[in-house]
């Protein structure tokens, strides 16, 4: 079942890429859209089939592949991976839909987007470390081309930077995985067969640090983030949606799946440092965003800030905070996609992203009123106004992390005030103000261009008003993760009881 999620986009990419189509035909776009919608609905159907009473991996598939090196084709999903897969399907659809129809080299473009989708899905569903790395690297190459070929003026620079960073990230993770399997003496790279309990703390720490740096680049965390604003800003809006909305989530996923789940004991050691890094990231991202003059770059920095919350949540690793962290990953994906989508429309119609030039887009006659309204919603969702999904996720993070890292949590709340500052700057400059009637002859935004933004807004609102529909899928898995993390402590507390009960047994 899961194989289909990977194979369909790959086959689709091959077909779109190699089958000849007449010049100027819309066929590749339609085919890609159909595949993306199909994938989204299929993964959503899988979500509804997920057995919420158990926390483990479901829909597993197993194929022995390269036994000597321990690489097996092991797939499976749980409440951590499947919602992200669904998000991947949705954002792929959004990205394809919001691509301009007159794009150059359409066949290459659409097949690359589908390849990214396949790679990301593969990484989410892989239950074998080497298989994960394979997909993790597979997604990298199409993204590189997507940035480089369809990007802005400095896209070559941004793409190279992205490639370098992510490749280093891949190498570090690969090294860590090899180390894990090797030191643990596991028979294969299958996640289920690996247990790090017997490793010395020192080697655990080294391996975990490799993973943290590796995934930290992907998330990205300060100070490993400098590839991110360039890559987001220079790529086309649709590619930025993929990059920020879903690729960054690979980092979060890896951090929780391979960091927290594989090294629960060592996680205790690094968690204070992680929490501090997280809150620094949050504040750093927010402050840098305030200083921006380019709305896309502002959104890019805001994304850095919002990923910091997830790190704080992961560091605290209570049941609530991990749940909040995953929810935040999804809500961030939705909100960021919406923001990039709208910024893309503004840039496309008005022809600039400069805050000092933009003005008065709320104007109902000459401006972009609906886009402005949605932009306000998106900005407020990102700033954490209740009733929108951002608040629900952030609140879970705050409430969950507060008992473990109170100061870091308060700093995060403080930073969400800074979030409001830059979004108000953005909205006041772009949506409010007086439209210059001499210059304002913008092309109309046609209804079809608004559809992805409307869909995303609807999801953001519905999940914000009724967050249960978001958290119910995630909760069983994150509960299990957090419980296994706290197990050593619980055992330590309950040991006297155990001994006592043993004693009473002996007495009998």
């Amino acid at each position, binding site marked *: 079942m899961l194989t289909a999620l990977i194979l369909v986009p790959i086959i689709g990419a091959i077909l779109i890429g190699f089958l000849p189509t007449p010049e100027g035909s819309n066929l590749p776009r339609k085919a890609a859209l159909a595949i993306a919608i199909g994938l989204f609905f299929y993964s959503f159907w899988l979500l509804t089939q997920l057995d919420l009473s158990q926390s483990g991996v479901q829909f597993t598939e197993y194929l022995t592949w390269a036994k*000597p*090196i321990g690489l097996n084709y092991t797939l499976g999903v749980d409440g951590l991976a499947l919602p992200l897969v669904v998000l991947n399907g949705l954002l792929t659809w959004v990205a394809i839909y919001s691509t301009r129809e007159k794009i150059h080299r359409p066949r290459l473009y659409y097949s690359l987007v589908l390849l990214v989708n396949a790679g990301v899905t593969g990484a989410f569903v892989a239950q074998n470390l080497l298989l994960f790395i394979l997909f993790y690297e597979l997604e990298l*190459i199409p993204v590189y081309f997507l940035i480089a070929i369809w990007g802005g*003026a400095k896209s*070559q620079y941004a793409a*190279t*930077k992205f*490639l*370098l960073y992510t*490749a280093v990230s*891949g*190498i570090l993770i690969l*090294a860590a995985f*090899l180390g894990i399997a*090797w030191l643990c*003496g596991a028979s294969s790279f299958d996640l289920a067969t690996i247990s790090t309990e017997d490793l010395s703390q020192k080697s655990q720490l080294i391996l975990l640090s490799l993973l943290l740096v590796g995934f930290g680049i992907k998330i990205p965390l300060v*100070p490993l*983030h*400098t590839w991110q604003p360039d890559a987001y800003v220079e790529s086309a809006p649709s590619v930025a949606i993929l990059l920020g909305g879903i690729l960054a989530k690979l980092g979060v996923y890896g951090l929780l799946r391979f960091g927290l789940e594989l090294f629960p004991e060592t996680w205790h050691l690094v968690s204070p440092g992680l929490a501090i890094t997280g809150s620094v990231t949050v504040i750093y991202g927010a*402050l*840098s*965003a*305030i*200083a*921006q003059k380019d709305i896309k770059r502002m959104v890019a920095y805001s994304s850095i800030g919002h990923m910091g919350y997830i790190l704080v949540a992961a560091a605290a690793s209570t049941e*609530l905070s991990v749940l909040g962290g995953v929810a935040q990953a999804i809500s961030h994906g939705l909100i960021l996609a919406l923001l990039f989508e709208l910024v893309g429309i503004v840039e496309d119609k008005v022809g600039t992203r400069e805050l000092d030039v933009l003005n*008065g887009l709320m*104007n*109902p*006659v000459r401006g972009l*009123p*609906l886009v402005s*309204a949605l932009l306000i919603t998106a900005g407020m969702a990102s700033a954490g*106004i*209740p*009733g929108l999904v951002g*608040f629900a996720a952030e*609140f*879970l993070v*705050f*409430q*969950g992390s*507060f008992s473990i890292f*109170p100061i870091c*949590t*308060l700093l995060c*709340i*403080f930073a969400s005030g800074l979030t*409001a*500052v830059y979004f*108000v700057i953005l909205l*006041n400059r772009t949506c*409010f*103000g*007086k439209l210059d009637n001499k210059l304002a002859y913008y092309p109309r935004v046609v209804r079809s261009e608004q559809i992805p933004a409307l869909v995303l807004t609807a999801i953001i609102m519905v999940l914000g008003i009724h967050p*249960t529909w978001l*958290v*119910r899928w995630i*909760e069983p898995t*994150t509960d299990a993760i957090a419980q296994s993390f706290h197990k050593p402590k619980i055992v330590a507390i309950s040991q006297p009881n155990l001994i006592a009960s043993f004693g009473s047994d002996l007495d009998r």
Partner: protein
Amino acid sequence: MTHFFSQTIWLVPCYALIGAVLAIPWSPGLIRRTGPRPAGYISIFMTLLAFAHSLLALREIWHQAPEYLSFSWLHAAGLNITLDLEVSAVTVGAAAGIAGLNLLAQIYAVAYLEMDWGWARFYSLIALFEAGMCLLALCNSLFFSYVVLEILTLGTYLIVGMWYNQPLVVTGARDAFLTKRVGDLVLLMAVVALLPIAGTWNFTELAQWAQTAQLEPRVATLLTLALVAGPVAKCAQFPLHLWLDEAMEGPYPATILRNTVVVETGAWVLIKLQPVIALSPVASQVVIWIGAVTAIGASLISIAQIDIKRVLSYLVSAYMGLVFVAVGTGQTQTALMFLFTYTIAMALLVMSTGGIVLNNISQNLTHYGGLWSRRPISGICLLVGAGSLVALPPLGGFWALVQMGDFLWKNQPLLFGVLLAVNGLSAFSLARLFGSMFGGKPTAMTVRSPEGLWLLVMPMMVLMGLALHVPLLLLQWQLLPDWSQIDRTVVFLLVFLTIDGLALGSLIYLNEGWKKPVRFGPQFLQDFFAYDLYTAKLYKVTIVFFVGIVSQAVYWFDRFIVDGVVNLVGLATVFGGQSLRYNISGQTQFYVLSILLGISLFLFAIVFPLFNLSF
């Protein structure tokens, strides 16, 4: 007796919310054919429904014990968030009051915004406000109170920014949003911190918990101060008061609500939290003194304003300051009664001036004069509103002020002095307002000034009737203070100060012989109050400057240090300075790829034998 309406009281906020959603499609660009009017009519109809429902529920719940409703919102990972509602005479009465006032304001807006193209937006937002405030009135949970306050913060941003193409409106909306957000976020910190300590967000349970809670003083102080921060921002108290002044750039019908029920959301939450705040003596003192300083300062500033709306807006801050004093000294019942009388008086004041501003196109007091012959109805309404606000027997405000004054006189005489001063200064300020507008000879701006459309006058008259009946209502509800217990000195002093203020104000501003503009003390002092204690400048050189500088510094650091190092390393080592230029040939791309591929393979090759051995 069936309890159908009180059991379905949650519908009251829903009506308004439905109205808000239904009004949106008439925004420009969606439905064009009908014009925007239906948006307003839908919203008014839904408000009427909400008003009727809450009145019927009020009849059911009258003299009954409070009922509690609870709806689960989110149940995850051990956290159970429920939407608790309290259905009692007070809460349902508050919801009815909010819906009723909204109804009047919306009818008023039909005339006031007759030619405005932002109808749908306005009605949608005002209905959102109604929904939020009705929910807040009924809500018995701190968490949802926070949620509502935060949503209303966004609502304030949008409704103040209604006429967004004017620069002052844009800055006003920004400042209102950010100031309120600061308060909200500190409140959020307290909300998050309170749960592990108290284990509940339910106000009733919090009050019980507070009776027995043993908190470390430092924790208690920090926690309660954080709880107070939300109301401080909402009620426009020092030092977060500037937003209300700037929010006056928004449309007048919204001001009817903003000056009354919207700012009272903060006071309402403060009253609900009073048992928790009482945990910390420091916090109680802070509440009292923030309130007292704001009350005196804002009433002085009010006198120095020449903008009609700003004269009133600073009186709002001043009266909310008195509510803070009342809550800080533990008089929550008095505070509620005070809010009731205040709401009607202030709404009437705003309505009566609004109609005048509409067709004289000026908010500048110095442009006015001689309106009494032109608009007696508005004049009478303004007088009734003014009389109801200050301690002028037998109108409503008198009874609330006497009750508060009596308590303060017996317990905290210094605060009674504050109350007296605020009452006197407010009376003077209102007399000044009335005198400047209605006294003297008509000016160029006021020569032609007929009473407005009936839609403007009717809500105003209804409200005036209500204001005149407030004492009877209080009598009916047995809320009038027990006359035998009241110290006569208090009554005498309050009334004396009121009459003093009114008389002095009238003497100066109704008297054409008195030279205008009037000078009080040296120029710098007058400027000090006229420019709102230079708060705007203070913000500019402190917090705004600080955030600006820090963000610039962080961004500089990011560009030139963090990224600079990366680029330097990249230039020096990996590419020998070739490929980081902005355009590179296709060949180099593959070169990069092959390098990376090579590195990966190489690493794999090194590790592979080692790995194989471990089998």
